[in-house]
């Protein structure tokens, strides 16, 4: 490009303003010459500064594989270096421009363990370059890349057959690879498919037509990227605005802010607010200090409406005569992105456009082998695996099928405990309630309820003398568990004797019945998924054994609060020991009624030796370790 002078800057700026942006992803591995190709694109488009080029020249001499020539791969090899060091393997974004277009390139590693990274890069790309080593032809990796990018909704593919120099620039090799690819790609919905023979290392067919391959009459890579028509071609361009923010600077202004996901809008247009369904018309389209006469897909604007309708973040304002669907059950495709597997029945936060709700995968219909496309049975979904599943949301969601609109059909799942983004999904279609109630598919039990609470239900049974510190420790433990986001309940004499067991006294039979009921209530609560803390003197081994047998192995944790009698009597918080010593209180444990210490308690603590915090932490450590 010629040197630019200040006097023709106006002309230049006008040129820049006319440029569109094309976002694409490169799929391939280093072995296919991916870094070399990207480096070559940056170099040929003159997007390498002189100081970078100088560094590149010296790096090439030192580390390069191309002798005295420049090794373009070194420009972009950051990612591969990371792989060797075992740290972040990620999506790197690179930028370059030609006279026609601006480009944003998502560069991701191509191996199977980086499927999620490729999906991330593909989610915002309009076009994919599938890189193939001419010597190797179509590999399982090529099929995987094809499957990921088409699943993510990319409809323009460049089949870049690289390293043609190493097969003697043979047309037959290229033609065979293209034919092979067209066979297995025939079912994909593609708008354009362009195969180009390249030798990226020498620049053949990158910017300039290759002299070594006169048999190829198609466009060079740059010619194709600069001219391919990627404009959105939906049959119906109906207005959709996901509302991100409600702007209320004063009582007279209510603006609804968002980025138009599809279609156009003009003042006066009839619109509908979803999910409520209320209709009104557009008063104005506000943007900064001006009012627009029209706004189109991709614009971030503020709408004001002619009627006072209720609109909140997460709602959609849409063309009144062409509203999208609203549903709460869907068939979806999910790509799992977390180490911890996805389990049906567990609930996650779901973010779809500006709406955040909770969602549960009810059933995995099948898993898809990412290399072959084969349908496989699956109970859980592991990292980098893809499945077709049914999903139920806690509230109705306004959506479009992903193939119709990527913005309104794509969603992410967020773990409710770690807050990590764990899954990416695409809505295929809504399941109608009448025909598709899959609730029966999921047996609701203790496991499912507990999973919703992200915890292991347990009964922690504190036993010990009156005044030993059972309730103090149990209270402290409950607060700590609560702070950690656990769902708990505490059963003790105070809340049980006053209600459920109001009819019971202190005779031996009543005391047995008292503990039997407490055990049964604790069991119901554990079944509901709770962590139940029981704090009762419960002096008799047989009663505690009866309670223990109500639970599954490992669920019942007996904590013996073994504070010496002398210490309990010294504390005598409620004055009960004094009363018993005076003979005013009969059958008092430790005085005239025995306490049978546990033979094999899960934990023994002593509040005369450790303070209550330390004791509570011992219990916490025990249950966390299980």
């Amino acid at each position, binding site marked *: 490009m010629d*040197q*630019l*002078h*200040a*006097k023709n*800057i106006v002309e*230049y*700026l006008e040129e*820049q*303003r*006319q440029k*569109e*942006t094309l976002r694409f992803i490169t799929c391939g591995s280093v072995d296919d010459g991916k870094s070399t190709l990207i480096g070559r694109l940056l170099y040929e488009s003159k997007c390498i*500064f*002189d*100081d*970078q080029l100088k560094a590149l020249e010296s790096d090439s001499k030192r580390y390069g594989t191309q002798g005295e020539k420049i090794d373009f791969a070194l420009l972009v090899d*950051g*990612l591969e270096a990371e792989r060797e060091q075992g*740290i*972040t393997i*990620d999506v*790197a*974004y*690179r*930028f370059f421009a030609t006279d026609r277009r*601006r480009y944003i390139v998502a560069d991701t590693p191509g191996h199977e363990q980086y499927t*999620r*990274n490729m*999906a*991330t890069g593909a989610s*915002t790309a309009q076009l994919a370059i599938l890189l193939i080593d001419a010597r190797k032809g179509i590999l399982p990796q090529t099929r995987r890349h094809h499957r990921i990018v088409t699943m993510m909704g990319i409809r323009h593919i460049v089949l870049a057959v690289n390293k043609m120099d190493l097969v003697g620039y043979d047309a037959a090799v290229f033609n065979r690879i293209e034919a092979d690819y067209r066979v297995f790609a025939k079912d994909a919905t593609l708008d354009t498919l362009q195969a180009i023979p390249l030798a990226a290392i020498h620049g053949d067919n990158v910017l300039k037509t290759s002299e070594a391959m006169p048999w190829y009459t198609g466009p060079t890579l740059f010619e194709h990227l600069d001219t391919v028509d990627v404009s959105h071609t939906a049959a119906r361009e109906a207005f959709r605005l996901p509302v*991100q*923010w409600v*702007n*209320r*600077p004063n009582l007279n202004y209510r603006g609804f*802010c968002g*980025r138009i996901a599809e279609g156009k809008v003009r003042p006066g247009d009839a619109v509908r607010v979803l999910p409520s369904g209320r209709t009104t018309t557009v008063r104005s389209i*506000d*943007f900064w*200090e001006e009012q627009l006469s029209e706004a*189109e897909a*991709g*614009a*971030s604007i*503020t709408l004001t409406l002619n009627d006072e309708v209720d609109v909140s973040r997460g709602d959609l304002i849409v063309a009144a005569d062409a509203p999208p669907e609203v549903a709460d059950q869907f068939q979806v495709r999910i790509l799992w*992105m977390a180490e911890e597997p996805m389990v049906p029945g567990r609930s996650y936060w779901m*973010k*779809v456009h*500006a709406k955040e709700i909770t969602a549960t995968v009810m059933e995995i219909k099948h898993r898809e082998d990412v290399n072959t496309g084969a349908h496989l049975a699956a109970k859980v979904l592991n990292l980098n695996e893809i499945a077709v599943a049914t999903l139920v949301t806690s509230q109705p969601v306004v959506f479009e099928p992903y193939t119709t609109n990527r*913005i309104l059909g*794509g*969603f*992410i799942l*967020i773990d409710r405990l770690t*807050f*990590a*983004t764990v899954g*990416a999904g695409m809505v295929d279609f809504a399941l109608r309630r009448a025909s598709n109630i899959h609730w029966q598919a999921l047996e609701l039990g203790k496991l499912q309820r507990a999973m919703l609470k992200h915890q292991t239900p347990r009964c922690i049974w504190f036993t010990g003398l009156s005044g030993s510190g059972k309730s103090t420790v149990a209270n402290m433990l409950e607060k700590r568990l609560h702070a950690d986001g656990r769902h708990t309940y505490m059963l003790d004499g105070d809340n049980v004797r006053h209600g459920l067991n109001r009819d019971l006294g202190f005779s031996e039979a009543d005391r047995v019945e008292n503990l039997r009921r407490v055990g049964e209530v604790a069991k119901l609560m554990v079944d509901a998924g709770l962590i139940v803390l029981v704090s009762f003197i419960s002096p008799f081994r047989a009663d505690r054994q009866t309670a223990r047998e109500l639970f599954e192995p490992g669920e019942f944790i007996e904590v013996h609060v073994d504070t010496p009698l002398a210490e309990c009597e010294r504390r005598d918080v409620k004055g009960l020991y004094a009363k018993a010593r005076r003979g005013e209180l009969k059958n008092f444990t430790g005085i005239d009624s025995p306490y049978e210490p546990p033979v094999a308690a899960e934990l023994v603590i002593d509040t005369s030796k450790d303070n209550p915090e330390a004791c509570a932490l011992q219990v916490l450590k025990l249950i966390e370790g299980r």
Partner: protein
Amino acid sequence: MNHYQQLEAEAIEIIREAVAGARKPVMMYSIGKDSSVMLHLARKAFYPAPPPFPLLHVDTTWKFQAMYAHRARMVEESGMELLTHTNPEGLKQNVNPFTHGSNYHTDVMKTQALRQALDMHGFDVVFGGARRDEEKSRAKERVFSFRSAGHRWDPKSQRPELWNLYNTRTRPDESIRVFPISNWTELDIWQYLHVEKIPIVPLYFAAKRPVVKRGGMWIMVDDDRMPLEPGEIPEMRMVRFRTLGCYPLTAAIESPATTMEEIIAETFNTVSSEREGRLIDSDQPGSMEKKKQEGYF
């Protein structure tokens, strides 16, 4: 939509989304050209309301005088609240780039000071003007960059970003740095400033200024706090700045460009990438990556 409308619409969408998910957002304001673009975008995102967050300037006290003047002007014009913070410890010890070196100065007066300010106010969403084209380690930076307690950037715990769906959830002590102009290039910034007629610090335009040559770079003598080395005599040269930081750490380039048009022309024809003028990027190998892990923007 053309290229600039797309970049602008994307940035506004990001800013609105971050604010919608935030408990207490703030925008870093460094007075430079990227900050000027950010401030402009924020005002556009929420107009006619002012942006629902304050600006935060981590002041090393070593900014150019012209920058302080510009800061005052923009605060006045935007009607936004400005918070400033200087590391009190650093101030007490008189930490400065001359006697302590750029590394230590940056650590104490920028990185540590930033952490102090964020902790003091408890911000959970912090807007920054970083761009992916600036430096190698930024190319893979998220738009929503997650920071664990202590503001650490852990490359392993970054959240995948698909489509325009950003996970804005944080616990107390955790925060997110949000970079709305991630996908802008230096040229985009200049062109946007030009098209939108956004005011910038005059130091970006060439003028005769007193400079000395150190390590092959022109360093401007902004005030009498700068100690001159033996034999160094400031000379008046036509210089301007492509990037503005602390004045002894930011080198000027010789240039005749006195108008926005000339700057864009010069930038477009430029022969060295932008951060070459920033001394802190090259004072140790992999230094940007390191500073980021410690909490630098």
